[in-house]
């Protein structure tokens, strides 16, 4: 994961570097031109310059640039010698050799492919996906243990169905209410009046109406009745907030309340 990010960052930095160099050049030229603007040449001067350059060209033998060398290209002037005798509907073919860098790339990838197979399936240094998975779980486990040992960490996560307590704190109820709205209202209604799921504001409960029982119902769900287990989506603190909020709704008599279900509890 982080490897990829590093590569991506590296790539971005190289790109930024290239762009910076270009921008620097432009700024340089701009400064130079604004400080010492070069005079616009007349047609005569241009012609003279062109002739001079041509003269220089004649003296120098044709030299290929670094770029063409790198790409393994032959100068265009030698092209005539490379044309093959065949033509297809007027299309000629040149007999250029395959560029060296291309062959390096080709053999390089073949080498990579062989090494890849050997690594994963002959000597077994590379992990199989099942081994990778096991390692990933182990690492998560280790990190979790380390996290719990940090001072102050995890008190909120130590809440469970045996130690949860109802709260009437305003902030808690507000937080619980907000969570209820997104997680619970599709099934239990906007005001917990009951829809697909039961009414949560009356005295009747299907799976117990004590805070510990409500906490447990939310955490593990009741799959056979369509109540989802929330333990993977909500933190223990969030579940306890919702439980407290639900209990605070008792007797609120919302409009369109669903008929009581389950056992009456005080």
């Amino acid at each position, binding site marked *: *994961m982080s*490897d*990829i990010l590093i590569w991506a960052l590296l790539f971005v930095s190289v790109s930024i570097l290239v762009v910076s160099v270009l921008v620097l050049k432009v700024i340089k030229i701009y400064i130079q031109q604004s400080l010492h603007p070069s005079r616009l040449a007349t047609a005569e001067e241009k012609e003279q310059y062109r002739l001079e350059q041509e003269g220089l060209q004649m003296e120098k033998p044709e030299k290929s640039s670094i770029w063409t060398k790198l790409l393994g*290209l032959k100068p*265009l002037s030698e*092209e005539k010698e490379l044309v*093959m*005798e*065949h033509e*297809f*509907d*007027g*299309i*000629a*073919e*040149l*007999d*250029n*050799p*395959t*560029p060296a860098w*291309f062959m390096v*790339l*080709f053999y390089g*990838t*073949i080498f*990579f*492919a*062989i090494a*890849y*197979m050997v690594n*994963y*399936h002959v000597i077994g240094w590379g992990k*199989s*996906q*099942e081994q*990778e*998975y096991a390692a*990933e*779980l182990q690492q*998560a486990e280790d*990190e*979790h243990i380390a*996290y719990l040992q940090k001072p102050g*960490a*995890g008190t909120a*996560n130590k809440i469970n169905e045996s130690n949860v307590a109802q709260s009437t704190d305003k902030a808690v109820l507000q937080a619980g209410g907000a969570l209820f709205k*997104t997680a619970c209202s*599709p*099934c239990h209604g906007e005001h917990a009046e009951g829809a*697909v799921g039961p009414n949560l504001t009356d005295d009747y409960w299907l799976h117990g109406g004590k805070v510990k029982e409500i906490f447990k119902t939310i955490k593990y769900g009741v*799959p*056979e*009745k*369509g109540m*989802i287990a929330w333990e*993977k*989506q*909500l*933190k223990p603190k969030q579940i306890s907030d919702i439980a407290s909020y639900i209990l605070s709704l008792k007797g609120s008599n919302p409009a369109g309340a669903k008929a009581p279900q389950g056992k009456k509890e005080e």
Partner: protein
Amino acid sequence: MTEKFYYDNKIVRNFAIATIAWGIIGMTVGLLIAMQLFKPALNMGSQYTTFGRIRPLHTNAVIFAFVGNAIFMGVYYSLQRLLKARMFSDVLSKIHFWGWQLIIISAVITLPLGLTSSHEYAELEWPIDIAITLIWVVFGVNMFGTIIKRREKHMYVAIWFYIATFVTVAVLHIVNSFELPVSAFKSYYLYAGVQDALVQWWYGHNAVAFFLTTPYLGMMYYFLPKMAQRPIYSYKLSILHFWSLIFIYIWAGPHHLLYTSLPGWAQSLGVAFSVMLIAPSWGGMINGLLTLRGAWDKVREDATLKFMVVGITAYGMATFEGPMLALKQINAIAHYTDWIVAHVHVGALGWNGFLTFGILYWLIPRIYRTSLYSKKLASFHFWIGTLGIIFYAVPLYFAGFTQGLMWKEFTEEGMLRYPNFLETVLQILPMYVLRAIGGGLYLIGVIVMTYNLIKTVGTGKLLANEPAEAPALPENYQPQGSDKKLHRMLERKPMVFLVLSLVVILIGGMVEMMPTFTIKSNIPTISSVKPYTPLELQGRDLYIKEGCVSCHSQMIRPFRSETERYGEYSKAGEFVYDHPHLWGSKRTGPDLQREGGKYGNAWHFNHMMDPQTMSPGSIMPPYEWLVTQSLDTSTTRSKINAMRTLGVPYEAGYENRANRDLDAQARAIADDLQKNNIKVKSDKEIIALIAYLQRLGTDIKAK
């Protein structure tokens, strides 16, 4: 002695018209489904225009109608000229043209009706599959007939690519289409689960290779030097990259199945060969770009060449990105996200689209003996098209990267940071809007091109039969000079060439498929996995019909982030009764493999009737018709029989009792819904679909 003959330009013109017409249709449907992703109401409340059913319409229309017709246009134009011969038979040309259009029309009718075999890019049902085979043979006979009666001794590189295209597409299509018909428009694939997935992606990836790539390389080798009036850069490179490309490509399919329950060795072969593909693919690119050496001043002037250059560059980018995406570490993030959608569209919009436009702009004025109506409009098309590709791809790369990382992120406490899948979708909706704008710009460009070409045609007259002359081939040919070389010898022998390319492409497929099919240990059996009940089987077919697989995968990868979100990762043995596999390739919604028992029946009912009530902000369209349409139980018997033929162990005579079991299970679900104040008759389609969803993954769920 010189012989006089005529090139058939009329068939080229016809394919050109079909290319443009289907291009506009396919891209318009694409724009519609792109908009449905952020505005589900654009499914227009109809089952026939809902994403799941018309997404395959878009892919099929663009691949086989737009690109397909463009291929035939390019081949019929260049083949005649490269061989100095008219097409073998005008009648076959006509059958080919009209047959292909009829196949496309049948796709346009059947896919919205929900008649699909669910294999991505091969969704058409078995009667159409047979028609495709027949028309493809017609094309092959016509092509080889022309090659046989040629007036050019040697076959130019473009023709090598055409031959490889013909033979490989034939093999791919036939092997991927082994189906057992159940009725006139319903069949089950012979393969199940892992094997089916392997066959499908062997086909799917090579459809990219041999339908979207090799014929276009062939076309590039003809049209680019013609347009630039420059010689091909390197004959040696042509030989090297042609043979290595067709040999290596065929192995790469399993990179679509990394981290799935496909055996590890097959996955690794897919990765290794994908990496080796870089050079052969780039061989085509550099041979094209270097052909333009000394002609770059023309590129500046000529919109036609600009299209070609950007097209070839897009090809180079996509074929570099492909091997990168095939690396496991990158694939782990990119797979199932929009990154892949962006990747294929760089290829489709850039390479296939732009090359097609370049060729159209060059070819239409030529066969109409006139010049292009407006160079300005062509230039406008080029720029708006390029802008369209950028607006399409960049937001989707961003969306894919974002979502892939969000799926994997954990909090310090060790819980998923975004446990609700929907949250990751809502995050990328603005990117979907931008992408649709990009698609819209691209489409505008195509419409401008259409106007420009219609105007061009108006100023000229079609030269239906173009006169040409060339000497007949000498009876006794004495090779001179470089014609004595080995490959030149091969270029004189089309049938040998055909057989050789067939052998080359068969090797990879055989090595990967045979062991997966024959060695039992590749698919460890799980005794608790049982066949589907009749109601679940019917529900599964509805799931296929509605195209749910377009948005939901059924393949949980062995990652902590996935097992935490969905449950135990998928095992090969779970899919032994899945004809076809439904692993999916893109997650627009969450994976469904462990969906069974997670939610109540009522939740599923409400979720399908109005997804927004159960999941506020959901982009799934409502499936109201499932409540009103009754389940067709008359097919149960033949479906059970077909499944038994395929090796699913239903006991003898079960087909007679199947509907009784189906009714009982359906009533139980309807009763349960009733308890939750939902009144629905037990014979409705939705009951079957719920039954299937509630079954998913339950066979191996830990108690």
